């Protein structure tokens, strides 16, 4: 469960990226965040695993405070997987090495154990034959599936997706979304920043619309699309749902 209470974040003390965000995400829920660029969606994601330090407010992930200096932030992060827009695979490592790095170094698993688990995950994302290739040899969709497998290798309780399909060619979006839909159905807590409204309709327990660092509207699937309450949301949806 993720509890966000009154979180505000400034960049360079001037630009307010997040403005008093409060939100609770139950265990096993999938929450989709959408909104125009610069609305604070990615900043909010990065606050959840402490990659960004909010100046105000509190965040708890499964009861552990993210900001508390007493918290072992590395331990906390190891239980939260993150997938990025531009994949961020380590280019000097094979798919296999990308996936096994953190299990070996953070979880202290043996190389063999980590590799067996990695192979299992690669089969789940349907690219076991790519295990020993380098990122530059993979297509965008394959890279992102390796990145998801890399995050899953830590057996996280929560997964964060930061626009994980927006850098992909159209025909590769589906293969990545299918993997994400399966994960959502398996009951991992997911926070997904995306503009893929088809994905939102299918698996989101809640959809949040953000603008200028604030949550403008939240809704559960159909009511959100069919009658958005705010004018801003309506405007945004009319632009992305062509």
């Amino acid at each position, binding site marked *: 469960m993720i509890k966000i209470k009154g979180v505000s974040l400034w960049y360079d003390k001037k630009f307010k990226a997040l403005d008093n965000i409060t939100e609770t995400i139950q265990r096993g829920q999938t929450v989709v965040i959408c909104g125009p660029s610069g609305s604070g969606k990615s900043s909010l994601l*990065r606050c959840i*695993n402490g*990659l960004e330090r909010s100046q105000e407010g509190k965040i708890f992930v499964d009861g552990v405070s993210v900001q508390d200096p007493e918290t072992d932030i*590395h*331990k906390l*992060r*190891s*239980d*939260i*997987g*993150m997938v*990025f827009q*531009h994949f*961020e*695979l*380590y*280019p*000097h490592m094979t798919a296999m090495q990308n996936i096994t*790095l*953190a299990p070996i*170094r*953070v979880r202290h698993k043996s190389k063999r154990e980590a590799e067996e688990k990695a192979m299992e995950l690669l089969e789940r994302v349907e690219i076991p034959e790519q295990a020993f290739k380098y990122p530059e040899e993979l297509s965008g969709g394959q890279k992102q599936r390796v*990145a998801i497998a*890399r*995050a899953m290798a*830590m057996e996280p309780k929560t997964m*964060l997706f930061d626009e994980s399909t927006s850098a992909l060619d159209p025909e590769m979006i589906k293969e990545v979304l299918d993997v994400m839909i399966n994960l959502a159905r398996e009951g991992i807590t997911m926070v997904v920043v995306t503009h893929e409204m088809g994905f939102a309709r299918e698996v989101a327990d809640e959809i949040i619309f953000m603008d200028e660092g604030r949550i403008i509207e939240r809704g559960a699937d159909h009511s959100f699309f069919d009658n958005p309450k705010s004018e801003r949301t309506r405007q945004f949806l009319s632009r992305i749902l062509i």
Partner: protein
Amino acid sequence: MDLSVISINFKFMIGGLALTFELALMTMVGGLLIGVILSIARLSPRPWLYYPATAYIHFFRGLPLILVIFWLYFLSPVITGRPIGAFPAAVISFIVFEAAYFAEIIRAGVQSVSHGQAMAAYSSGLTFYQTTRYVILPQALHNMVPALVNQAVIIFQDTSLAYVIGLREFLRRVNLVDAREARSVELYLFAGLVYFTICSAGSLAIHRLEKRRARSC
């Protein structure tokens, strides 16, 4: 052209290469060590580390090496009250000077790795040390190899400047032979050939090594 001047004095002149190599190697090792420390300070968000390191780097990059050698050789006895030997004076000024260049090469290499890489590593629970060791440094080192090789070649050539304080490295010995035999054309062509051969063999070898490493990893 009378090449016998070279064959007769060959042993004496080539003997100077030992000192040349010694100077170059000590400079590379010392310069790299101090360069690493300087670059860490320069990449640090702490102002008391960042500003002194930045000032140091700018200062030495703004001076000709020959001036640094002169300063150290002639000024340090005035300050410390003790004369300094030509060899330590040369080594110290080379190291102090080259460290500034190494620091900038290392800094650029580290910064060439995108911030997203560190984000990905941190998000999987890796510590700062692990992120640096397994994710940032391997990529940074790979990116900085050409610049480091280039700098090593420059250092090798710059060791010849040690002649100004009387060190008998390779070029100084050629110079001495010329003073006696007055065969400038032959001798300096020979000197050029020696520098060229060593430098290009060195860069070629490292280039090959780098290619092989890129394939195997």
